């Protein structure tokens, strides 16, 4: 079955290396047309709520999927997740948490706040790519079904 490519993924990540590697993984599996990157919690909320430099909807399109790192400056991943899930406009956008440690408490907290899934960043890049591909395809399929 051919899965529709996602239009936009918003990557919320502060580690420049991880940004580059995640972008590589997403582009290599041909999952998405555009990847938007923001590198701290406040900027993520500005983008999603179209504030400050993200006011223009054409330049800041709604993402089909959000990849959200847990540990971020200014506001952490959970605070952002909470605001997304409380917003009528945003709460249907699937959010996948990215965690470095796979800490059980973090995963449970994310689930309680309404995250749709999580990826533990593995040291093996190939594994990471497979995970991104698997989860991305799944959410692309869901969005295809619901659109």
């Amino acid at each position: 079955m051919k899965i529709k490519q996602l239009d936009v993924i918003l990557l919320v990540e502060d580690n420049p290396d991880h940004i580059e590697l995640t972008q590589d993984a997403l582009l290599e599996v041909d999952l998405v047309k555009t990847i938007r990157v923001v590198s701290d919690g406040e900027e993520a909320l500005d983008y999603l709520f179209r504030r400050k430099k993200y006011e223009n909807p054409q330049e800041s399109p709604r993402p089909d999927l959000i990849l959200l790192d847990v540990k971020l400056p200014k506001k952490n991943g959970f605070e952002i997740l909470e605001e997304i899930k409380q917003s009528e406009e945003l709460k249907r956008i699937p959010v996948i948490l990215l965690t470095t440690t796979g800490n059980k408490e973090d995963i449970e907290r994310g689930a309680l706040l309404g995250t749709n899934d999580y990826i533990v960043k593995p040291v093996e890049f190939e594994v990471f790519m497979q995970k991104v591909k698997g989860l991305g395809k799944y959410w692309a399929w869901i969005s295809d079904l619901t659109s």
Partner: protein
Amino acid sequence: MDPVSEHFFNPPPLLSFILDSMAPGIMFIDTEYNILFMNKEKRDNNPHIKTGMKCYDVFEEYGMRCPFCVAARAMENKSLEQNKEYISIQKGVELPVHLSITVMPVLDEKGKVIGAVEIAYDVENLYQTNKRLERLNKEYEHVIYALSHDLRAPLVSIEGFLSKLERKKLVDIENPETIHCLDRIHVNVRMMNNLVKVLLDTSRIATGSLEIQENSMEEIIQMLINNFNSKAESQNAVLNFDFKQTHYRCDRIRLIQVFSNLINNCLEHCKLTENLVIHVGMDDGVFWVKDNGPGIPEDFQEKAFEAFSQASRGGADHFGMGMNIVYKIIQKHGGHVWIENNHFPGTLIKFTLRPSVK
């Protein structure tokens, strides 16, 4: 009146003098909790109470026997009793000290309880030291956790970029020297990643909570068979399970981890043992893992459960944390783990997951 009663109800001057010169606070009470005698330390610290008053008058808010009365227990059980927690409140206000109270019942010649002797030790220094150690331990666990987290992020990057170099052929991946260098980087990253994982897991055991549930032992055995059968077969070893109880309440994942670490240790340390048999079992709340291998050297047994301790040099993925993790999980459950010294040849490790059984 027999001599014991006489000395107890009317302490002679020499006895009073000796007791006055002692550091702990000492008090004699009768079976009605009336104070018969207080040494100097007790008198100095409790100027508001006098001989003849009830001992619980120290605690004004009760007006009756204290709910945690150690003397009552001592007189009832006719045995030496101690308070479980240090007492730090008197008259509803916090004391400047923490007290450890020991009470000994006094029996007359016929064995009848006639009162009790209470000895109160000032354990403030010990209490403060314990508190400080607890705090330091928490800080230490937190540092390990934060450090492990921060160490893992660069590892993800190193391995990711290495993979990019290979995937996109940005280096000559046909060159044997390049292949060797890349291979060594991969091996070292994997080793460091495993070490960080072990550190993260150890700090999680210490700081996290247990998920206590009813477990079917059959399921746990099956899980262990699935995990270890092929490794055991490759060493011509036999795994033998003998569980007398069908169910047990504990943290399932952590119990499997304890067994896994112990079985893995047997397999790793008995590679040269012919006809290796590993027995895994439990009876009456005591679990065990035993093998017929070379055993644990006597001078190493004391250190066996310490972090980063290894009896012999392990491979790249062995950091000597397995037994320490076993120890921490068992300690978290409130149980004990020990090496049976009289089991020879081989190693017999037993553990409990409850405080009462050993």
